[in-house]
């Protein structure tokens, strides 16, 4: 099954290499990977979509935590999230007829024409992966010259954010199957 993981990492050189290398070493296949800044200049955010057995999601989360520069990890596969993928597609539009058809399709799908040239047109769609997929499917009636997709970025719904999760109390919680609640890292209370 596909898992979506979000990691908050320290914004330092080499961090992405550490994360990617972990997937390679443990032989997990990444479908997509995005990295970008957050509103905190010290923290970057990575979204990984990977193919793995159901139990392996947790294993990867725990292994990611072992990386010193990884601050927080969440497997958001089964929680309500907003997911977005962005595609840029260059299609051949040699004449007015093709250009009009592309324009109509974009209008219909909520995509944008971002560059119109004499031979080709570049269109852009950001949306859930399924709508991006079906849009690209529809574009096949034209000749696709070039395409790029960013891969998934995800954000959990509601007020709780990744930064607010108190990692001390939650990061190991899932690891005591017969015990509900409680994590076990650094508890000062008895």
């Amino acid at each position, binding site marked *: 099954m596909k898992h979506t993981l979000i990691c908050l990492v320290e914004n330092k050189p080499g961090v992405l290499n550490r994360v990617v290398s972990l997937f390679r070493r443990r032989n997990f296949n990444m479908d997509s990977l995005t990295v970008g800044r957050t509103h905190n200049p010290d923290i970057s955010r990575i979204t990984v979509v990977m193919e793995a057995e159901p139990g392996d999601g947790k*294993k990867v989360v725990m292994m990611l935590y072992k990386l010193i520069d990884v601050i927080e990890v969440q497997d958001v596969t089964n929680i309500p999230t907003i997911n977005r993928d962005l595609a840029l597609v260059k299609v051949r539009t040699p004449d007015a007829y093709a250009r009009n058809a592309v324009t109509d399709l974009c209008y219909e799908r909520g995509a944008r024409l971002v560059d119109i040239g004499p031979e080709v047109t570049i269109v852009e769609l950001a949306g859930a992966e399924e709508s991006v997929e079906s849009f690209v499917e529809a574009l096949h009636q034209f000749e696709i010259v070039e395409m790029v997709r960013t891969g998934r970025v995800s954000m959990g719904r509601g007020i709780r954010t990744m930064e607010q999760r108190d990692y001390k109390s939650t990061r190991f919680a899932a690891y005591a199957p017969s015990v*509900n609640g409680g994590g076990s890292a650094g508890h000062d209370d008895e």
Partner: protein
Amino acid sequence: MKLTGAEIVWECLLREGVDLVFGYPGGAILPIYDALTKYPQIRHVLPRHEQGGTHMAEGYARATGKVGVMLATSGPGATNLVTGLANAMMDSSPLVAITGQVPLGAIGSDAFQETDVTGCTLPVTKHNYLVTRTEDIAYTIREAFHIARTGRPGPVLVDIPKDVQNKVIEFHYPEGELRLPGYNVPGKAHPKEIEAALDLIHSAKRPLILAGHGVLMSGAMDEIRSFAEITQTPVALTLLGKGGFPENHPLCVGMMGMHGTAAANQAIQQADLLLAFGMRFDDRVTGNLKTYSPDSKKIHVEIDPSEINKNVKVDVGIVGDLKMVLRQLLPKLQTGQHQEWIGQIRDWEEDTSERDILLRLAAHPDGKLWAAQVIAELFRCTEGKALTVSDVGQHQMLEAQYYPHTRPHSLLTSGGLGTMGFGMPAAIGAKLGRPDEEVWAIVGDGGFQMTLTELGTAMQEHVNINIAIINNSFLGMVRQWQEFFYEERYQSTPLKNPDFVKLAAAYDIPARRVSTKEEIEEAVQWARSIDGPTLIEFVVVQNDIVYPMVPAGADLHAMIRRPKPSESPDFENNPTAI
């Protein structure tokens, strides 16, 4: 105070309490070596190969509980560290390696002796750094030591370009909190987890403790002993757990796993509760996971969260420091009685002694020298009080079987990586760290030759270790696999060896050869009486087999065992029949 980056390195090491480092100089680390001249309070030991240096640093670390330090130059110096770092990573040993790097401007240009060291060592270190500013050296070294020794310890590498070592800056030691938002050192368990564990502990009929390296690393020897005695729970040890619980204790069932005692493995398979304390269910101790301890509930106390449920699904997983967690459990424990269970284990142990090679040889001496006899005699002559360092192979497993350990940190061996060549250099490091210990390196003829260059180090530094080479003129453990699983095709395992006694003589190291049981005691006492390194070559039977053996991936209870006399068809003619 104005200091060069190189001087700052030593200032920081001093503040970490370092008084001994291992290292090998070269162009890119010369500023650091030059600066060492100003710090005579730090002893520097020069190995003959950087790999040997890392094993020395690890032996030192594991014998003392302190962080071992190894220096190397860029390029080949640094790549020679990789095996030692990987070994320390697998066995969770605290090391800090400092490597010189080509100057910043040359990085990425394929400069002379440039290697991407942080890239090469990424998977074999707990963490690593490339320091690009002299101002960052002190903080980085402080953080490196903290990461190396806390949580699940491990090796950390700091790569410092030559110009960063040379630059002079105003030095302030960075006090205050480390900035490590992604690093968390587990401590106590959550009360709910303690309750859940207690429920299982108090309802168990056939409980068994699996004690691993974590016992030693968290210093939980007393706690585990109290736990076992209060609840009357037998204790099985992993190879690296040896010393965590005294092997002469009535509740100790010995080592588990591939060459563990049959009693320990049978107990694991029949237990109704496994208490895994600071161990990681390595494949060498579990055998086939599908049939592993099928009827037991499992409690796993482990400092590394990624180990819990990694190989074996557990019922209660507690991430924490073992000593702290046991201290939470101890006051709440009810006293237990498991007479029937312990009686059952005794029966298994009796069945084992019937198969024991030493008893058989005592009844039917054959005039040959067997490796097990060497180890058992060594145990007797040293009164079981030596700090032994084994290499990898049959002799390592025989050491584990015939040299029971009763004190913590009295056995050092390469467990997770199984690195041939670890033993002798690690013994040098251990002796330098614990000069009051009697240190024996017990090594095979194969593994010894992987790092025998370190005889030079033992000579130069006058390190008082005794080296026992168990010479079977074979890569014995591989030979054993070939005998069992490859129809006795001994492909590339026989060894033509040098004269080890002459070899030692070339290093001015006193040496002897022993080829009968009767000579062992005298030779061992001779070695003990000499101040400085000694070497004894024990010429042993070639076609020896370490029993019992769980073939890789087989069910843990499906051990290949030495036949009992009553089961051996040709017993009269061949009493030691393999």
